[in-house]
Each structure stands twice: as C-alpha cells, then as structure tokens.
C-alpha cells in the first residue's frame, strides 16, 4: 500500500489530530486530555516510507485508512473504532 503526504494530512486533520512540523510532521490525537494515538510523516516527496508503521500508529488497517482518505470514515467512526479497541476509556 502507498500513502501520499496529502492523504496522510487529510486523514489526521479529519480525525482531529494536533500537528507539529519539524524535520517530520508529528501528529497526535487527544481525547478528553488523554493522548490516545501518535504518528508522523516525513516531508519527503512521493509516497511515504514506513506505511505499515504509520497504519499501526493510527490503529488502522489498509482498508480503514483508504476509507478515511476517501472520506467514508469520519472522526466519529474513528473514535468508535478506538473505543472498540479499548484505546479510549
């Protein structure tokens, strides 16, 4: 699976991740003042490296990320998924 920077940015923005740009773009999700997920992407051009790790950090599989990037998975769906995985109390 390949992920482009724009897809990564669209997904973390839609899910409400906060971001900080440095050598990489760092993104983290806080729910009720608890940090529940963190990930990052490089600023390199083209497809992002380490997609498997990014998916794991987002707690998504390939199909779920594609749904998120294609706008069929909303923030509420994502939070429900994290609750199912007991990553949110």
């Amino acid at each position, binding site marked *: 699976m*390949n992920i482009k920077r724009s897809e990564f940015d669209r997904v973390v923005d839609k899910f409400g991740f906060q971001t900080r740009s440095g*050598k990489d773009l760092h993104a983290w999700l*806080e*729910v009720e*003042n*608890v*940090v*529940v*997920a*963190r990930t990052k992407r*490089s600023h*390199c051009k*083209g*497809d*992002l*490296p*380490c*997609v498997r*790790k990014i998916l*794991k*950090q987002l*707690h998504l599989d390939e199909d779920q990320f594609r749904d998120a990037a294609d706008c069929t998975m909303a923030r509420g769906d994502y939070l429900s998924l994290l609750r199912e*995985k*007991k*990553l*949110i109390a």
Partner: protein
Amino acid sequence: MPVTMNLDPKSVGSPVSIDREVVAGPTPILGTLTEVDLGKGDSSILGRSFGLASLLDGRLRIVAPIQVRVYEDAGQIVAEADEIDEFGSGETAGEAIADLQRLIADLYLEFAADESRLGPGLRPIWDILRAKIRKLG
C-alpha cells in the same frame, strides 16, 4: 546477526565510526569497526538488525539495547524500532539511524513529561522506554 551499535554523535554522516558487538550464536564477540560507510549502498547495514546503544542526547543513556532494523522503503532508508513503534528515515543509513536516535530521545522526554496523560495504546511504549533508557542527573 544481532549487533550492538554505538554511533558517535560527532561522527554522524558518511562515513562514520561505530563500535559494535557482534553476537554469533550464544557467544558474544566484541570487536570494533571503524570508518564504516553507512551510505545508501552499504549492503552490510541494509536489511540487518542492530541493538541501538546510544542516543544523540547527553541527558539520556540507553541501559538495554533497542532493537533496530535498517532497510530501504519508498526511496528512503528507514531505521525502525518496532518494539517502540518508532522509525527514522534519511538518504543514508547513517542519517536514518541518527534521525531515529533523535526521535527516541524526544519521545522519551515527551512521554516522561506527559506520563499521566498517556492512553492505553501508548503506555506499553512508555514502559519499554522507561526500562531501556535512563535520564542522567
């Protein structure tokens, strides 16, 4: 073959000097490798796993090696520490490992500061970092 690598912060780049502990079977063999080119084409580094034994932060010391695998992906060299869900990247293996060293140090310090706010998905990572890294002073 597991290898313990000490990257000298002053020599990050290509070529760099590293010390390494080579483990062959049950008997560790200590040796020193100098002037090793960690450049993109260095086949002795790519595709192999190492025990990372130092960070680019004088405040922190690794007390138990962090396993790192170096490989090429999407045109970048990646240094991945699977046990803590972290990876660094760069144009060369040296850059990728140095990137990972910085990221691990940042991650340790961020998690230490935010320990009470870490969710259940991040606490296991903090447990590993806390077990393998000591803050000096």
